Each structure stands twice: as C-alpha cells, then as structure tokens.
C-alpha cells in the first residue's frame, strides 16, 4: 500500500513538473519567442522549418515557433482564468445550495439543470456566435455551462458534512452561515472540487481552441493555437508545419493537464 502510494506520488510530481514547465513557457513566452510573432514578411511566406525558423513560417511569413509560444500564453492563461472563475462561482453556488437548501437550492439547481440540458459545446457555439468574436465572448460562452459541475460537486460535499458535529458545534457557538461556510465547510470540500478543476483544464482548453478554430474565439492577429490551426489548414498540403506544431502543442498540453488531474485524483483515492 505504501509502495503504491509512493508510486502515485511520483506520478503526481512528474505531471506537476511538466505542467509547471508549460506554465513557465506561457509566462515567459515573450522572452522565449525568437522572433516577433506578429511581424509579417512577404518574402518568408510558408518557409519550411530551418535554423532561422525552427517551426517554419505561416501564410503571412510569421514565425510559427514564436506564435506557438505566444499562443501558449493566450491558450493556457485563458483556460486557467476560465476554470478559476467557474470554480469560484461553482463553489459559492454549491455551498449556498447545500448549506441552506430549500428554495435557494431549488432555484439554483434548476438553473444548473437547464444549463446541463444542452451539450456544452452546442451552447458555447450559440452563445459565442451571439456575443460575436473575441476571447472574452468565447470564455463567457464556455463559462455559462462550466460552473454547474463545480456547483453540483460542492453542493453534494456540503450536504455530506453540514450535519457533522463540528458544524453543529460552530452553530452553537453562534457563528452565522457565512462564517460556517468560510471557516468549516470550504476548507473541507476544497480538495475534491480543486481536483475536479484540474481535470477540467484539458476539456476547457479544447473548448477555447475549438471556438477559436471555428472563428468564434480570438480575433486576428492574436496568436492562439486553435485559430492558428484554422488559418493554416487551407494550405496544409504545402505547409503542414503551420498546422502540425500548434496542433502538437494543443495535444501535448491537454495530455499533461489531464494526466496531472488523473494522477492527483488517484493519489487522493489511495489516501
């Protein structure tokens, strides 16, 4: 059992290291990018990978490596921000529903049911279309349905602990609902919801890149992996590198964050 736990911990550490590297790349992408990711050059259109341009150039002569690096910032930062916001909203709603129950629970959970009645991507495409182009619109579109999973999880965990003796003791001490939720419930339900947030990173990244691929995400010329794939697919046969590298970056990043989420979840189960 101990050996198994050590093995799982090792997995978590490895995944966390890789995820950390990706986050560092995103943070320092401005320094790491060898060229201006937005500088166009008609003489360098669709250049194959070379010493000067390791990932080649795109249809407008822009350095693909620099755009992949800058795109990491856009993609990873927007994913983290969206997951964080959804996590916070979901936690608040879930705790309120679980703790107070009654009409508050009924109303908020029915709204959540309503959101879950439609496939997430379908709702996101519709909302992003209505809001028009832009990363903000895409994030709102995905966030509309995303908070519900956090809310449901937070609610079920709140329900399971709200009648514990230490909560009753807190009540008897005269603490109000807000104080109990902040000091006793939240710390106890944080871990499972946080792990859920980790597993949501990959899905969210696919969502943001997917919307950008469809032209409903970032506005040109902003570098983002989904929009880079979309722009480059028209000439995939003559410049496959312009599709390949942002696609590989997307796949690798999703694998790393999904692996991290799964590793943490399994480690917690073992505990």
């Amino acid at each position: 059992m101990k050996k198994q736990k050590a093995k799982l911990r090792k997995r978590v550490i490895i995944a966390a290291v890789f995820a950390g590297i990706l986050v560092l790349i995103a943070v320092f992408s401005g320094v790491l990018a060898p060229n201006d990711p937005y500088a166009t050059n008609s003489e360098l259109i669709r250049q194959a990978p070379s010493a000067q341009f390791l990932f080649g150039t795109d249809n407008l002569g822009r350095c693909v490596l620099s755009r992949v690096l800058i795109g990491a910032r856009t993609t990873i930062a927007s994913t983290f921000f969206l997951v964080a916001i959804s996590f916070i909203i979901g936690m608040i709603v879930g705790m309120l529903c679980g703790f107070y129950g009654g009409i508050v629970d009924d109303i908020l959970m029915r709204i959540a049911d309503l959101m879950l009645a439609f496939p997430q991507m379908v709702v996101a495409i519709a909302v992003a279309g209505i809001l028009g182009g832009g990363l903000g619109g895409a994030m709102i579109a995905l966030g509309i349905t995303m908070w519900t999973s956090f809310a449901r999880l937070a609610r079920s965990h709140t329900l399971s602990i709200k009648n514990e003796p230490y909560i009753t003791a807190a009540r008897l001490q005269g603490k109000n609902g807000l104080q109990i939720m902040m000091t006793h419930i939240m710390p106890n339900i944080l871990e499972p919801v946080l792990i859920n947030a980790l597993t949501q990173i990959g899905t969210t990244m696919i969502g943001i890149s997917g919307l950008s691929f469809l032209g409903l995400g970032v506005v040109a010329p902003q570098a983002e992996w989904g929009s880079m794939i979309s722009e480059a697919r028209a000439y995939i046969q003559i410049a496959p590198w312009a599709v390949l590298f942002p696609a590989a970056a997307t796949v690798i990043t999703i694998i790393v964050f999904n692996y991290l989420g799964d590793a943490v979840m399994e480690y917690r189960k073992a505990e």
Partner: protein
Amino acid sequence: MKKKLIVLFLALCMVFTMTACGGKGGGEESSGSAGGTLKTAASFAYPSIDVHKEYYGWYTSIYGLSEALFKFDENAVAVDCLAEDAVADGNTWTITLKDGVCFSNGDPLTPDMVIKNIKRLAEVNERFAYLGDFDWKADGDNKIVVDTGKDVYPMLKNDLASPECGMIDLDATKDFDKDPICTGPFVITEFNPEGDVTVARNENYWGGDVKLDGAVFYYMQEDDPKLLAMQSGEIDCYNSVSSGALEVYEKEPDKYVVESVPGTRLQYYILNENRLDDAVREAINLTVDKEAIADYQKGTVSVANSPFPDSTAYSKVSIPAVDTEKAKKLLEDDGYTLGSDGIYQKDGKPLKINIAYYAARSLDTLAVLIQEELKAVGIDSYLTVEEDPDSTYIATADFDLALYCMISDKCGDPQYFIDSTLADGAYYNVGGFESAECEEMIKQLKTEVDPDKRADLANKIIQIAIDDNAFGYVGLFNHTTVMKPGVSGFAEKIPFDFYGVDANTVMQ
C-alpha cells in the same frame, strides 16, 4: 486514465498522418469521355432557382439552365445570345430576337414572353425595378421596342445581359423555385434547396448540340474540400481557386489545367471621413502597400490600380505611390507627435483606428497586413470582425477603415460601381464621401451614350474619390479555374463569376 492516453495518442497520430498524406495528390480519377457528366463544386447554394429573384439567376446561369437576351464575352462586352442585337435611337431601343429560340419544352420565345419576363423581374427584384418604368412593346414576331422615358438609358443592352434577366416560360412553369422552364442547354433533374444540383442535357436546345450529357454541382463552401475532391477525382473542375490550392495545382501541371484571367471582384476599403481627418486618411492611403498585399495572396489577386480591371477604358486613374515618409510628415504637420511606443498621438490621445472586416474573400488577410503596415508608420489599430458586414458596419458606419469586397464591374460598364459606392446616399457610400462635382458627373454618366465619354466621366469621378482619400482600392481577384486535362468551356476565360457550363462545355 490509460484509455484516455490511448485516445489522445491516436488523435496525435491522426494529425501527423493527415499532414503526411497531404502532399500525395493521387486517388482514383474519374473516367473522362466525350459527353459524360461533368462534376463540379459550387461555393454557394440557394433555397430557390427562380431566375428573377435575388441573385439566384447567377446560379441558374452557372448550371446552364437560363440564358439572358445577351451575354458577356471574354472582353466583358455584351454580345448576342437569345437576341441578335439591341439598337438605341435616342430614348428608344429596338431589340431583335433570334429566330428559332425556344424553351426546353419546345415553346417558342416570343417578344410578348420577353416583356412578361422583364415585368416580372422588375416586380420581384428590387435591383431591376427601374426596368418596370420603361415602356416595353412587342413589334411583330421578333422585335421589342423599349421607350426609356424622358431620359436616354445607354446601358440597357448590358443590363439585359445580367443573368437575372434570364428568360422563363412563365405560362408553362409550375414551380418557379424548383423547376423553372428556361432556354438554357441544360434542364434541372434534381434540385436540393441549399444543396447539390443535378442537370441533364436539354434535348430541345435551340442553339444546337449540347456536348455534355449533364452536370452535377456539389455544394462545397470551403476551399479544402474542393481541393481534396479535385485530387481524389470526385470533381472535374471548379473556379474561385484559393491561393493555397493554386500552389498545389501548379506543382502538377500534367494533372491539372489552371486558367486565370483578371476578374472584377474588388477588395477595397472605405475610410470614414466623419471620424478621420484628411491628413490621417491620406497617410493611410500612402502607407497601404497593395503590391505587397497582392504578393501574400499569391496569384489569386492582381493589384487594383483602379476599381476596374486595367484592360478597361474606365480604369485610367492615378493613385499616389506608397510613401511612408510622406505619410509620417503629413501626420506630424497635422499636429501628431510620435510617442515612445512608436505610435503617433495628438493631445495625449494615441492614433488608434478601428479596422472592420468580415472573414471572407481574404479580407482577414488584408486586415492583418494593413494593421501591420499602419503600425510600422505609427498608426495603431484594432480589428473588429463581423459575420455580416451589411447589417453591421456598413449599416451603422461604426468604423474608421472598413474592408469590403464586391463586384466592381458586372456588366462591362462602370456605372453600377459608381452608383453603389460614390453617389450621394448610395448603399456603400457610408464613409461620408460627398462631392457636388462628382454628383454632377454621375448624373451625366447616367445619360451619356458615347462609350469613350462614359469612360472619361468614370475616370474623373473615380479620381475625385481617390484625391479625397475616401477609399483605397487594394486588389482585384483573378477569375481562376482549375480543370482536369480534357475539360474545357467552363467559362474559364470569362472574367465574371456567373457563367459555368454551356452547350460547348466538354470533357474528354
């Protein structure tokens, strides 16, 4: 977890495999033969094929179903089709129909039927409502006399060559939306609204033998499926080839025949005079390098030296050459100072403009390139992309620089473009361009009969707009068609988008 990893690994492999396989054109080739059924791709598909409504006539013309009284040749000149000729005498036109013209059901095309068609067109299509104001009279078995009222109307023959003026057997047609009876070399066999269309040879075609047995038009919006369908042999030809696909075809000249002729679809921008002062507008026009922009659109676009193809008499205008130093000086003389961030500012406010565009006709590429070029001289900008320009920035004029793409010359004459973009209150004159001199000349253009004088007037009108820095004409799309060897007669040498198969289209 293992399952997830396997799925993701397979997805990664798929991406690699797809890109690796891309370069191989290969695939089965459809067998070619004299006659046969031509398979091609159509970029648009409509809910109806009523020739007179909306722009549906463009597609009935492409499908080879409908024909107008006249048609445009390779030099954009209106030549005979269902009618032999149209002769003007002051405000009266006499149109002579050809002998033996009949509909696909065998009924003859009579002057009365032509008049009924024109009246229906004027009723159902707002763009042709003016034709209803003219007095149309049948004269004998094959003549129509048109009285255009108090003003002469010099462009009637060209207007009647528009595909919307296609003739329908109004007495015999039961379903105008799905099966109009027309005079073209093909008849409809299967029409899927907003989908694929199949046509077959018109056995009663008045113009002689029709070489093909039929044609299938697959609805393909995107460029990639067209390229892949061409490579796999699923289609035999298509037009409006993208620059990426063009490069692929040009690498294999033995497998693909590419024809490219200068077209009339113009990429241009409107500068908002209500928001940008003269110096800024002039600086923008001195900065935008249309030759560099055309380089990026490899082979699919020619530099626009005017809104019209260089070969026309009404394209003789002078546009100042790119001069970024002069652009900077203009801004500085206008009170702008260069900030530490490399962007000009005035009264502490950076010079930042809103570039509105829609992501079609390569306008997204133009938007990014223009943004880059402007930034290099110190004009900052942000891009606003809209799905439908007509209902957004064209309707509200909420832009500083608006990109648009339209056909500048659809009837071998400059009047349509001038009326649409430069006349007071014109639909696309939304940037605040006004000129009394220009307006006066537009009035003259409407009634001028002499082609040379018309060209001269058009040149003067366009020059005023250029000198006012109201617009920037960037590029003219080439009409590019790709065909398998042996396919010909797919309107590949005609600069207009509204022709496709005809009686002489052949595949061997």
